[in-house]
């Protein structure tokens, strides 16, 4: 199980990296933490002719906060995010998510932006991105563009990134003081990619839900929100009945693909169960009785 040969590039500036991508296009792959790309290459399921390692470029591991919005650079590792005070304070949902991603020895190398760029439908971060409406910045040698969360994930392991682009930034909007959130999932084993999981955010003012996001992973070919269920919550006060009603909508709307680890019926059911659990966990965190 050894990767096929490739030309290895270790640029020291982002411009050099972008120039390499511009030159090699589809033949090239960006290497960030390598926790998804390297096993794919070892299995010879991925065979880029050129590998552009971002590792030697300074300044890509920054976590910054401006007006409450938190931005992460492409070399911020999951474990770095897990321990970041800025994230704990200003992007609590990202902090809640990190312990769910794989195991520590993978989180120390794997990057948050790599998770997003890879676009695995069973991964947690894409769901966080769509739940929060984060903004993604893609940079190529011809410039920068921002992509809205809702436009980013196009299909199974497929995103709006072009082959000459690097995802250089993800910015999570300022976290409202009225917001609560949770991440719940069920995996076959602890630390595995989830069978189904849900990222939940609720904005609650005077005991009324003013905004809601329910973003599922492992439930479709991309991370996916179920707006009918979200709508059903808005305007009501958080309660077990409201949560169960949302869960019923979710279980009816989603038709997750089956694989050897779970049937469609099972995943559908699980999506419903996790909806209730996720909503309950979210409100638990602020002590609102459900």
């Amino acid at each position: 199980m050894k990767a096929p040969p490739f030309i290895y590039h270790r640029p020291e500036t982002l411009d050099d990296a972008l120039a390499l991508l511009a030159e090699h296009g589809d033949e090239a792959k960006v290497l960030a933490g390598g926790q998804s790309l390297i096993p794919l290459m070892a299995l010879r399921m991925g065979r880029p002719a050129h590998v552009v390692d971002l590792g030697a470029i300074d300044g890509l591991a920054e976590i910054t906060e401006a007006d409450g919005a938190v931005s992460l650079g492409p070399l911020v590792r999951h474990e770095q995010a897990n321990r970041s005070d800025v994230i704990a304070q200003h992007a609590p949902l990202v902090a809640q998510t990190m312990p769910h991603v794989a195991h520590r020895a993978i989180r120390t190398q794997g990057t948050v932006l790599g998770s997003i760029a890879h676009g695995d439908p069973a991964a947690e971060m894409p769901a966080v991105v769509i739940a929060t409406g984060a903004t993604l910045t893609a940079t190529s040698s011809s410039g920068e563009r921002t992509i809205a969360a809702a436009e980013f994930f196009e299909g199974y392991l497929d995103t709006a990134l072009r082959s000459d682009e690097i995802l250089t930034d993800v910015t999570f909007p300022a976290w409202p003081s009225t917001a609560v959130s949770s991440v719940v999932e069920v995996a076959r084993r602890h630390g595995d990619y989830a069978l189904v999981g849900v990222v939940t955010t609720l904005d609650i003012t005077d005991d009324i839900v003013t905004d809601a996001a329910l973003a599922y992973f492992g439930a479709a070919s991309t991370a996916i929100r179920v707006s009918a269920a979200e709508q059903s919550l808005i305007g009501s006060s958080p309660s077990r009945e409201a949560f169960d009603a949302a869960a019923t909508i979710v279980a009816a709307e989603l038709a997750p693909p089956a694989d050897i680890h779970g049937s469609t019926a099972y995943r559908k059911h699980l999506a419903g169960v996790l909806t209730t659990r996720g909503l309950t966990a979210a409100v638990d965190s602020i002590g609102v009785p459900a």
Partner: protein
Amino acid sequence: MTDTQSSRLAAETATGGSIVDVSFTVNGSATSVTVEARRTLSDVIREDCELTGTHLGCEHGVCGACTVLVDGQPSRSCLMLAAQAEGRDITTIEGLAGPDGELHPVQQAMMDAHGFQCAFCSPGFLMSTVALLDENPDPTSEEIREELSGNLCRCTGYQSIVDGVERAVKIMKGGSK
């Protein structure tokens, strides 16, 4: 370079893949190697550095047998290109015992607790445990189980390994090292 090594390098060059020079520290010794870019850190540790205490159980990130410390952080050596280790500080199982052969408390504890059977998984568990206790010197048994869940063992059913970590906590608290 022996004949075999140079003929291998010639063949590797002929594949068209990059050959790279990489320098890093392994268990305190500065090391430089010239290898194919596709070689993983585990390939290089085992073959070029001849440190065979790091094991390969799956080469796709799941079993954890290949876990080493990279700048003190537990990492899968099978999921890192050697080239990515440029300038890093690597610790393997061979680097745990003292220079005089004195066992690291985690090694001593695993021996006391009959932690392993075939011990093929042991390098990964030892390195993960060292990393865990470095950061959390007094974990609960639930925390130990959670942290070690990134490492597979087929022989023991894990309890003896968890016991070993608990024993290591005691030894280390006793201030023996």
